[in-house]
């Protein structure tokens, strides 16, 4: 079973509204002498004066020094640097796993996470606005899953010019890695090959398959589509692709497209859904037509876990977004320490079926428990 959210320790207060908290930290940081522990330095000076001439120091000065020490101490406690983690959207299994991984790494590395994203994966304008706001409010690093590879190029270049370490996860931008920019990507070739192998296996190398959810705006999906086609053609020549449809992040539209595909190709044996919206749309369409289980549904990107248990979905090729979030925070922390980090890293996806669903590895990849509770 999927690890359910527990209420034992459900509340770890994450980074709240960016502006206020950032401002406080910036203020505190500005008060600290460069390169030293601000608390120790600032408090030691007045105490030396006290030792020199205790009797002459007025009571008001003592109070002021004490207040300053408490204030600076408070600043120091609240001075965890912030890393902005901006996925394509939030509140989906795919991205909440990233949230969980990022929070886990941030707790370990002493960072605070600012987590927000557009309410829809194709709202690139909102994503740019959120990223800009986070950086302007003082985020020390950025982990971004871009909604669109082109529109985010200029903002990302601007942030790179300001020396902000950036890790792009999931799908790449059209900017080469290097400098402060690095990639932690899903191995899209492997996703495509895995999908082809799985469909070839369950169809025993014969039949037809429809490919849904090709989104030209997401480079990774295009790559996984190409890999799927190549591997299928090479390894399973008797498997044909009956239809290929584009689609964005609109579930109802994906449902409509699936219904249309099934109407035009009633003998399709399997459907490959390339993203989570296509998966949901295809699932609902098959459900309405009573074809769940009869037409094999192989999904990319984790979504709709319960139907996997019942066999209504054959398998899901899960991206390891938990590990992406975890490693991205580690990389930014390392960059801020001046250490070298790999420019590009690819994480292998995992084929999840009802047989391996409950393994700890898969459970971690599907967790939505970002709060750190057990």
């Amino acid at each position, binding site marked *: 079973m999927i690890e359910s959210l527990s209420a034992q320790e459900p509340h770890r207060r994450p980074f709240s509204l960016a502006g206020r908290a950032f401002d406080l930290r910036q203020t505190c940081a500005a008060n600290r002498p460069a390169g030293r522990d601000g608390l120790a330095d600032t408090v030691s000076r007045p105490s030396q004066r006290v030792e020199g001439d205790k009797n002459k120091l007025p009571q008001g000065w003592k109070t002021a020094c004490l207040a300053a020490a408490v204030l600076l101490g408070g600043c120091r406690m609240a001075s965890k640097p912030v890393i902005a983690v901006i996925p394509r959207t939030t509140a989906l299994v795919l991205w909440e796993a990233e949230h969980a991984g990022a929070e886990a790494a941030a707790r370990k590395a002493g960072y605070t996470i600012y987590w927000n994203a557009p*309410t829809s994966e194709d709202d690139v304008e909102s994503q740019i606005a959120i990223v800009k706001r986070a950086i302007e409010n003082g985020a020390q690093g950025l982990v971004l899953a871009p909604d669109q590879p082109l529109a985010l190029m200029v903002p990302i270049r601007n942030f790179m010019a300001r020396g902000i370490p950036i890790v792009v996860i999931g799908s790449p931008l059209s900017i080469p890695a290097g400098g402060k920019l690095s990639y932690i990507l899903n191995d899209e070739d492997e996703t495509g090959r895995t999908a082809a192998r799985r469909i070839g296996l369950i169809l025993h190398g014969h039949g037809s398959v429809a490919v849904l959810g090709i989104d030209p705006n997401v480079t990774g999906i295009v790559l996984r589509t190409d890999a799927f086609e190549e591997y299928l053609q090479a390894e399973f020549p008797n498997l044909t692709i009956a239809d290929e449809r584009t689609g964005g992040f609109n579930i109802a539209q994906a449902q409509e497209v699936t219904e249309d595909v099934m109407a035009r190709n009633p003998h399709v044996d399997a459907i490959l859904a390339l993203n989570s919206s296509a998966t949901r749309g295809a699932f609902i369409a098959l459900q309405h037509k009573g074809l769940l289980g009869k037409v094999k549904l192989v999904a990319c990107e984790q979504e709709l876990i319960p139907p996997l248990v019942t066999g209504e979905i054959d398998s899901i090729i899960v991206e390891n977004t938990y590990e992406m979030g975890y490693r991205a925070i580690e990389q930014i922390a390392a960059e801020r320490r001046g250490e070298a980090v790999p420019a590009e890293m690819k994480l292998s996806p995992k084929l999840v079926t009802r047989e391996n669903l409950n393994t700890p590895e898969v459970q971690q990849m599907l967790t939505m428990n970002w*709060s750190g509770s057990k």
Partner: protein
Amino acid sequence: MNLAARLRSPSIAAILCLAAAIVVAIVALIFFSRRTANRLAYRDSFASGNAAEWIAFGGTWQIANGTMRNDSDERGAKLITGSSDWRDYSFAADVELLGEQGDAGLVLRSSDEEAGVDSYSGYYVGLRGNDGNLVIGRADHGWIELATRSMPRGVHAFQWYHLKALVHECEITAYANEIPDGPAQTLSFNDRHCLTGGRIGLRSHSSGGVWKNLVVLPLSVAYPQSTPSGPYPAPASLPYAVDEPVTVSQRGAESPLTRRPAPGGETASEEAASIESPKPVESIGGLRAVRTKDRLATVRGTVILNSPRIYVQDATGGVAIMPHTETNLKVGDEVEVTGEVDVHDFSYVIRNAKIRLLWAHAPAPPLAVTATQAATGAFDSRFIEVDGSLAGITSEEDNRLLLSLTSNGQSFSAIVNPTRGNQSLRHITKRSVLRLRGVCVVDPEFTRNVTPFVLILASSDEVELLGGPPWWSLRNLVVIGLVMVTLCLLAYLLYLHARHWRLRAIVDERERIAHEMHDTLAQCFVGIGFQLQAIGNSVPSTLPNINRQLDLACDLVRHSHEEATRSLSSLRREFLESETLQSALHSFANKMVVNGAVRVKLNAAGEDSATPYAVKDALFRIGQEAISNALRHGDPTLLQVAIEYAATTVTMVIEDNGSGFEQTGDLGGFGLTGIRKRAEAISATFSLFTGLGQGTRVQVVAPLPPKLAWLKAHRYFWRDAWGGVSNGKGTQQNPYSYRR
């Protein structure tokens, strides 16, 4: 005077106390007004169309028939109000879901709100359609589901529920029942590390919602602790894993508001058939190409406005839709529309339209254009964004606001549907720069042929204030002018005071010198006199020459002592402070003519109330010189001294009936140089009237400074600005002005 001494001054201390009292009063006023504004008790005013206190984070929030309505399926749309100081309270409302698969409910103890699905810190109590649960959750910029419990009959769209939530210390309790008297469900959760206070809000997720009868009351009395469902109950389900979208079949079949077109409308089987044999769908922009009257066409597009008229756009254009039957589409819905196309010059309308809902989606972003581009009609019925300067606001029928705007020589209007923020729109200053997002309409029904196009805005949220009016407005220029004039007058008054202080300093210094001379020079004369007298007493009378010379020396010393004493006394301030100018001059003249045949006559008019000492002193010395000149050179029998005090001047006239003298080019003699300099020093006008056998008349007109005469200050300012600060250009014609 040092600072401490100044602070000890009663007047300064009083001013400081007054300033402190004003500051305290202002702070107290702000504090109490804030407390009043944040008082924990709230009832909505949706029935009166007022909801300006609410702030939207996503969604399309509008007031409709006394309810607050979000027609958007956007995930996590929020509407927030209240105070961060609110702690323990109950929040009740009637809630209706507009979709089967989403959820809608109430937000409590909220803070740090941002646009985003779970981008706030607070609690959420809601009704979820996809699993029929009453749910308590917590958002910390990420969702944590705390507790759920099934509603007895599930949760259904278009069914009103009464929802009530209470937050008391760390316990969150939820109650819900179907309206009017359906089965109820309660749910409670004790949050060990709870949020302690915050605002309230309305929230929906993947579904629209309607809220009404909002009531927030404080929990001031001892609140009965409900039994928690467990110490830390596990959530019943994952919140997002089983969500389903709003689909054609679901909304079409189950929603009475989003129906298929009724007469001849498609059924589910017809819809399936239509999938297999799809109708030819045209692009909206292509509708213009065929002008056949009342031809049937089918288009697909996104709903960009649903009130007062439905507008749909695709990538090629937009079109107004007049449906065959009533519909309740949401902004963002993807629809297929079939109807009769009515083509106009710049716009087209699909009448008797049958609308098929394809799927729901978030509202489309606007297309940014200039007002000139919009005025061409190329963007008719499309969702656009335009900047403009506000020219005026008027109220239309049905509580709509009509904004008049200008931009780059174009004028256009914007119609704002009656929504919660319209009150705040009324306070925007004219000539402010606004950014508006709405549907561009060139239909004369809306433009009335007054402007090339009209923007129809879904709500006041579509108006963004980019900047206030430019500073060079007429009002500001007038204010700046007045301020500048006031500053000039103040500067001039300061200059007058500075000049007065300078003259005062000169007088003080002269007085000090007089005292010094009295203590040294005069005493020396006395000593010399005594010594000469002693020498004289010891010189035998047989030396008459020496005695005579000693007597002469004694006389000279005595005379010099008297002169010195007289000069010193005239240097002293007390000389004029103890008596008036006319009496001083009269006394001086009488002393000069004692035992003589000259008669002295004094004329005085007016009251000496504000003549500064410097002026009085200068006039006295001029008078002394004039009297001395008259007696020495004129051989008069009558000497007249006249002083006249007016409101702004004092005039002194010394006149005799003596021999007078012939005017020559050089008037430096007769002590006139000294008189002229003294007159210049007080900005006085000096005039001399004389002639052989005609006597002599000396007239000096001295201005009085604008002391305690703020309203008259400008007269001096302009007089000095045009006439110069020196004397010599008096208004009276002076034929003998020595400054010729």
